[in-house]
């Protein structure tokens, strides 16, 4: 991709982000419920005290002023104070982010590692037993809600078989010095294999729950792309050259089939963030998703705004990454 095209894309990105910030801000404005009332609950605060708190939180100023204030601060990484924690929102997010990143990455790796080989095998043995099983599995995978699938997993592997833990990132007995915030990495850096295994054990169920839908979609995309590729003339020509079957499938097939697959994978990773809210709630995962859910119920505007903005920006950036990857993989496309 040429630098000029890249710059164009980045400017487009700027407009999209502006739109997102506006929508995020207005959405929270339109949500019913007065944060001051909710915060004070049924307490005996007088009308003057409520007014004071409202002014304190900047809620008495006009809409446009508040929006500009919001954007200005957001650009500086300043999202205000959480109404409840009485701490900067940015701190809260940074504190929760590593847990979410770790969960999302592992879920993505699991999904990709399962889906791509399965999609290829299903395509190569089209109509075979494995293809049919994979298709049924994919159907279940996309249609089974995460909250239900997660609970099923907990019932089987935690409650009945006592194989895996149900909640949290790691047992209380483990103390891992924070370097990256990702427990799998940090425990390895600290040379604590027991902690690594504990963290891994805690990751299995939430990651599988989170990655299931993505795996199902990726499997379908890989299979379809591979079927399309298998019928191409260049596959026959590669065979006519006397190449081995393996080389034909990997070099000629996969390289082309991966073009749509990688694009979808990057976009789907964005959707994983949405799934995080449910999965983190079920598995008591101390990440961003749970922070948002708690903040929504509490009308904790600054936290919700900041998190939704964060999700949206990540999603847009992942789409951008998908575009770039698409051009890198596909020499015919120049953005």
């Amino acid at each position, binding site marked *: 991709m040429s630098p000029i095209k890249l710059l164009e894309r980045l400017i487009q990105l700027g407009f999209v982000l502006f739109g997102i910030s506006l929508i995020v801000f207005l959405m929270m404005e339109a949500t019913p419920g007065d944060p001051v009332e909710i915060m004070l609950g049924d307490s005996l605060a007088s009308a003057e005290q409520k007014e004071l708190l409202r002014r304190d939180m900047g809620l008495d100023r006009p809409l446009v002023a508040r929006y500009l204030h919001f954007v200005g601060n957001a650009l500086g990484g300043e999202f205000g104070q959480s109404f409840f924690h009485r701490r900067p929102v940015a701190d809260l997010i940074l504190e929760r982010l590593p847990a979410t990143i770790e969960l999302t990455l592992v879920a993505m790796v699991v999904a990709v590692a399962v889906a791509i080989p399965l999609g290829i095998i299903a395509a190569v043995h089209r109509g075979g037993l494995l293809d049919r099983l994979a298709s049924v599995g994919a159907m279940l995978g996309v249609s089974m809600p995460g909250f239900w699938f997660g609970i099923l997993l907990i019932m089987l592997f935690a409650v009945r078989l006592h194989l895996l833990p149900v909640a949290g990132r790691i047992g209380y007995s483990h103390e891992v010095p924070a370097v990256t915030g990702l427990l799998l990495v940090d425990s390895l850096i600290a040379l604590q294999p027991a902690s690594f295994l504990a963290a891994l054990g805690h990751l299995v169920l939430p990651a599988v729950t989170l990655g299931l839908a993505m795996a199902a979609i990726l499997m379908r995309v890989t299979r379809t792309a591979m079927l399309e590729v298998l019928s191409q003339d260049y596959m026959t020509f590669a065979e*006519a050259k006397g190449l081995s079957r393996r080389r034909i499938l990997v070099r000629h097939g996969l390289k082309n089939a991966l073009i749509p697959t990688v694009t979808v994978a990057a976009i789907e990773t964005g959707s994983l963030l949405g799934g995080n809210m449910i999965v983190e709630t079920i598995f008591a995962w101390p990440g961003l998703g749970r922070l948002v859910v708690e903040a929504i119920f509490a009308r904790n505007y600054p936290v919700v705004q900041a998190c939704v903005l964060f999700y949206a920006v990540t999603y847009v950036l992942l789409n951008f990454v998908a575009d770039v990857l698409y051009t890198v993989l596909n020499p015919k496309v120049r953005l």
Partner: protein
Amino acid sequence: MTALLAIEGLQTFFATPAGEIRAVDGIDLEVAAGECLGVVGESGSGKSMAFLSVMGLVRRPGRVVAGRILLQGEDILGLAPAARRGLRGRVIAMTMQDALTALNPALTVGEQVAETLEAHAADLPTGRAARRRAVRARVVEILGLVGLPDAGRRLGDYPHQFSGGMRQRIMIACALVCRPRILVADEPTTALDVTVQAQILDLIGDMRRELGMAVVLISHDLGVVAERCERVAVFYAGQVVETGAVRDILDRPAHPYTRGLLRSIPRLDDPGRRIEPIPGQLTPADARPGRCRFLSRCALAAPPCRADIALADLGRGHRVRCVRLRP
């Protein structure tokens, strides 16, 4: 002398829900070392499928059900898949109709030519760097030979960066880099502009002399074959209906289908002549055994045509599958 390639009684059938389709139904052909055989027929006549069968590239639900394919005297139908693969691209190579779709859009042309070599070459040096240099040298050499200008600098380019004619040359280079004994060129000019067609046919002829290989030129254009080949085989509905030296076939066509083909070619030297198309069209139903395959379209159809017709020898290798006509 044994032929370089001998096809005997080859049958390739496709199992479909509607029944068995006899794509290739009893083909006998020989290709001598260094000669050029033209294979002519319309779409669905089985000419491509016959040579895909020879290459071992028939896809399901198609299957070679009977016959022998002797390559350098050895029946290759009985070979293990790995041994069969070792012949493809090394002893017998094939080019496809359209280089645009036959070349992989995601791989550079250098890689695509090199991989044929890497799949077979036993004579490459063993060291990694030396091997890479040797492969590169042979790739540049063959690309230069097929007439790709500035080949050394274009190895890293992708197929879409070349013109149609250049892509065709690159595909031919992929097929010829291991210097095969025989090249099957499947409709090498159909996808090309008229101005480039002659260049590509010239190239195939040049390479044939240069490498001393035999060429099977598959085409639906009898004119092209007449001009470039020594012998011709006319395919119809999965069978060879007439075969012989190009001169004999052009001068004394013995099968009504061949005559029809000749009458339907426009000629510059005889502008007053009317072009007579062959009525009707070839359908899978024509490939039924127990009758002449051309029966439904033939003006000379008669009761004796309702039986399996054998190839009759007219002398000098001129053979025809018709009981009604003799030249």
